[in-house]
């Protein structure tokens, strides 16, 4: 049984989370200390919630549990300075906006991301998946992350948004540097972890604000134009508001899908009988996608700040306390999921929290689901013998669960 120091040390060490081994710690916490006061080596202290019901509680009340400090545990668990907040979009980016302003921004967007608005995109997504898999097949030895999983959201999301193709790689790079400041691979000498995420967030924003200005001048048939023209019922959104909406589209759109697809494909390769089942029965795609989302939980934790004193799980909490909902743990909660440590693409019901819940529930979830429903079965239909050429490398992050690299051979017979 881990002692408290080890627990706190682990929960505040990003490298502890590279892989899936961290789940043992949460299994321990769910049983012995589900509302755990966490004191790291540096940075501020926070409550760690590991039970499903408690994670739901904080996401259900966005007034008491504010997102103003950012949507997930920041590097070094340090608060931003006012200047950094300005660049990071605090109070502007929808994820870091509290009610009632949150609703004002969110309501007009919903219909553009709803299931009936997204379902007609299936033929486009199918075409994109074929294009990606054709290019990969031609090379046979590929990287599952860069050549397949990451390609999917880049081609879908940046095309839908209306980003010129020559800018895709740059935006992809800025996104990785914004979100993965904890991983040495995405760091540079000029920035520490916090200044990196703030600086690159600002770069993504500057690009997006340019898109919004451009579409306000000359509308096109793309999401940048939709966002540029949105109004809150009366007034159009400011350039800064609309620009940060596009930032949410880029960051949310590129990140989670890549991670879920890379981990999902890997888990399916390790379970050939389920991969075969999926390839032969596309009607299982929906439940397979939900299981991949539950299992991977691409974003492990949600950060909330208390706006008043409260009590949770028998603990008194104070206004200003940071509360972390470890949804990755909630998605393995024995009280909610039958055989939580079994990966089962036929699992139903599967009310996982990978897209969050409540006011901030993922705006792009219908898009992400459709992308994955098309991609996952198609990989195993086309490459039933896909095999490893090496070990997967995980992203170092206490938030993102995903792979950086995974060398695979698509068709072993072709050699």
């Amino acid at each position: 049984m881990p002692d408290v120091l080890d627990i706190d040390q682990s929960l505040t060490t990003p490298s502890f989370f590279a892989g899936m081994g961290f789940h043992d710690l949460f299994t321990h916490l769910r049983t012995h200390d589900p509302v755990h006061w966490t004191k790291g080596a540096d940075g501020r202290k926070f409550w760690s919630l590991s039970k499903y019901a408690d994670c739901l509680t904080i996401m259900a009340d966005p007034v008491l549990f504010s997102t103003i400090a950012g949507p997930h545990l920041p590097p070094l668990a340090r608060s931003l300075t006012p200047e950094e907040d300005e660049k990071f979009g605090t109070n502007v980016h929808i994820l870091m906006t509290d009610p009632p302003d949150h609703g004002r921004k969110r309501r007009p967007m919903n219909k553009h991301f709803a299931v009936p608005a997204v379902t007609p995109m299936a033929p486009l997504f199918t075409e994109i998946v074929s294009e990606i898999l054709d290019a990969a097949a031609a090379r046979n030895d590929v990287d599952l992350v860069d050549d397949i999983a990451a390609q999917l959201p880049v081609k879908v999301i940046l095309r839908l948004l209306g980003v010129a193709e020559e800018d895709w790689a740059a935006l992809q790079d800025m996104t990785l540097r914004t979100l993965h400041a904890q991983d040495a691979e995405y760091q540079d000498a000029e920035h520490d972890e916090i200044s990196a995420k703030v600086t690159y967030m600002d770069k993504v924003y500057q690009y997006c604000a340019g898109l919004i200005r451009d579409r306000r001048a000359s509308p096109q048939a793309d999401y940048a134009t939709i966002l540029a023209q949105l109004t809150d019922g009366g007034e159009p959104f400011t350039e800064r508001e609309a620009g940060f909406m596009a930032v949410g589209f880029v960051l949310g759109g590129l990140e989670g899908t890549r991670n879920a697809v890379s981990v999902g494909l890997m888990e399916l390769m390790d379970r050939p009988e389920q991969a075969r089942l999926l390839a032969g029965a596309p009607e299982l795609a929906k439940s397979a996608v939900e299981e991949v989302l539950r299992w991977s939980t691409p974003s492990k934790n949600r950060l909330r700040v208390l706006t008043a004193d409260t009590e949770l799980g028998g603990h008194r909490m104070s206004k200003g306390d940071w509360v972390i909902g470890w949804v990755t743990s909630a998605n393995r909660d024995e009280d909610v999921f039958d055989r939580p440590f079994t990966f089962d693409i036929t699992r139903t019901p599967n009310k996982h929290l990978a897209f969050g819940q409540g006011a901030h529930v993922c705006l792009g979830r219908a898009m992400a689901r459709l992308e994955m429903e098309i991609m996952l079965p198609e990989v195993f239909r086309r490459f039933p013998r896909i095999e490893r050429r090496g070990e997967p490398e995980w992203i170092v992050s206490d938030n993102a669960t995903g792979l950086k690299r995974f060398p695979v051979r698509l068709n072993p017979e072709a050699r």
Partner: protein
Amino acid sequence: MPEVTFTVEETGTEFVLDATGHATLMHVAVENDVPNIEGECGGDMSCGTCHVYVERMPVGYLAPQSSDEIDMLEVVNEPTDASRLACQLPVNESVGGLRLRVPKL
């Protein structure tokens, strides 16, 4: 025991259901596995998976439409003047006799 009826367009199947204890008609449908009503967002008007046509409105049944609902109905499959989001139809004492047709998702 207020009774409500859902007719599924695709198959013609009729569901006559007791609405007691449910918050909205979306919840009645989801709890009873009525096809083509998913209610994915739980009634937050963010998913658009609870589109129905109202075929018979009981006398005295009030379910005012918000601008958010009107907005969402712009993107659902084949909207008409009878279109509603089932999650915006509350269960109350006058709901008995409400008849809804369920289009394809």
